[in-house]
């Protein structure tokens, strides 16, 4: 029987693992990857203590830091498939078929990209529908491309495409992109870029590869089609909560509701930290701090249990 199972290997999971090991809490950490979502980031400039670092380098440093700890069991590559309440605590079943019995669970499984969900998206994934502009932008050389989403990741994807795409359409739901003004200025200054506002995406079409994106112009109520060879979908993220969603309170946004002093969820014995929670700001630095809070609270909780 373990004291703690940490689910996830992003910034929150790794920070929790390091603190748990140093507190000599009997811990297993289950993850299929290290570093979290910013692993695909070309350059991170706000990770405190490092002026500039690539997402991959940061992920490796996190993994090394975790693996340098004594006494923590790292279950990798694996994922939590199901978590059940037991008489003594919790039973975590992993996708590879392991069963882990534990007193406490710290859920740090983060979030995943949000999909459009309309016709054509799944069918054309990889064949024009793309989700990683830093990876795939150069493959769209000479093609007209649409980026869907007006937040920071949408604006950044548009800028990533500028050196390669013949034309970039930034397609947004609202009237103005919500992302950083600095990036938006770059887009407005580029003659090959066009912002298409008040658009409701209808479908993605094509033959072998994507050839068009259909949308409704909500202002005039008319359907239109953009002739594009690529559609980059950058519309935010969805918290990963499936294995715990029947156990703990989830808010309307699909996030785990936590007590922000302790990171406790609504169910005794389960804590959560990072992007899967209702934390207001989703940031590497914040996820780490919240996970540390959680582990220190788990430590106090375990101590109290021993005494009683």
């Amino acid at each position, binding site marked *: 029987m373990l004291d703690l199972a940490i689910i996830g290997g992003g910034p929150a999971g790794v920070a929790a693992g390091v603190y748990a090991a140093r507190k000599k809490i009997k811990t297993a950490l289950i993850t299929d990857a290290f570093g979290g979502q910013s692993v695909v980031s070309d350059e991170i400039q706000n990770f405190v203590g490092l002026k500039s670092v690539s997402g991959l380098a940061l992920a490796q440093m996190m993994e090394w830091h975790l693996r340098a700890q004594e006494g923590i069991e790292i279950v990798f*590559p694996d994922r939590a498939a199901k978590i059940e309440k037991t008489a003594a605590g919790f039973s975590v079943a992993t996708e590879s078929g392991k069963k882990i019995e534990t007193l406490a669970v710290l859920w740090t499984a983060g979030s995943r990209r949000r999909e459009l969900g309309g016709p054509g998206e799944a069918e054309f994934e990889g064949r024009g529908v793309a989700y990683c502009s830093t*990876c795939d932008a150069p*493959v769209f*050389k000479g093609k007209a491309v649409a980026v869907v989403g007006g937040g920071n990741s949408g604006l950044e994807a548009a800028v990533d495409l500028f050196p390669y795409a013949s034309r970039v359409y930034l397609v947004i739901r609202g009237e103005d992109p919500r992302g950083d003004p600095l990036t938006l200025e770059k887009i407005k200054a580029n003659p090959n870029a066009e912002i298409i506002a008040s658009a409701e995406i209808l479908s993605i079409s094509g033959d072998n590869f994507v050839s068009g994106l259909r949308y409704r112009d909500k202002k005039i109520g008319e359907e239109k089609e953009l002739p594009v060879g690529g559609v980059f979908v950058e519309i935010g993220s969805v918290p990963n909560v499936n294995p715990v969603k029947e156990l703990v309170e989830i808010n309307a946004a699909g996030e785990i509701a936590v007590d922000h002093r302790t990171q406790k969820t609504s169910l005794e014995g389960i804590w959560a930290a990072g992007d899967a929670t209702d934390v207001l700001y989703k940031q590497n630095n914040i996820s780490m701090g919240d996970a540390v809070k959680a582990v220190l609270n788990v430590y106090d909780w375990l101590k109290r249990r021993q005494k009683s």
Partner: protein
Amino acid sequence: MVKIYTTPTCVYCKMAKDFFAKNNIKFEEHNVAEDDRAREEMIAKSHQLGVPVIDVDGEIVVGFNRPEIQRLLKI
């Protein structure tokens, strides 16, 4: 013969190359951001537009699919 089609800013390409290096697998890299012919070749082989594409003796793997690559390389 292992070929990998990459772009310079693709982190999964770097992961794949690190994985090859760690396992002493020799590979030939084609940067599709620069090399138009390699890009066309990659699209023709994989029927898709994402990197990395890994060609292990004619078997095509899309993405850094570690278990699949391990199976093909028997490591």
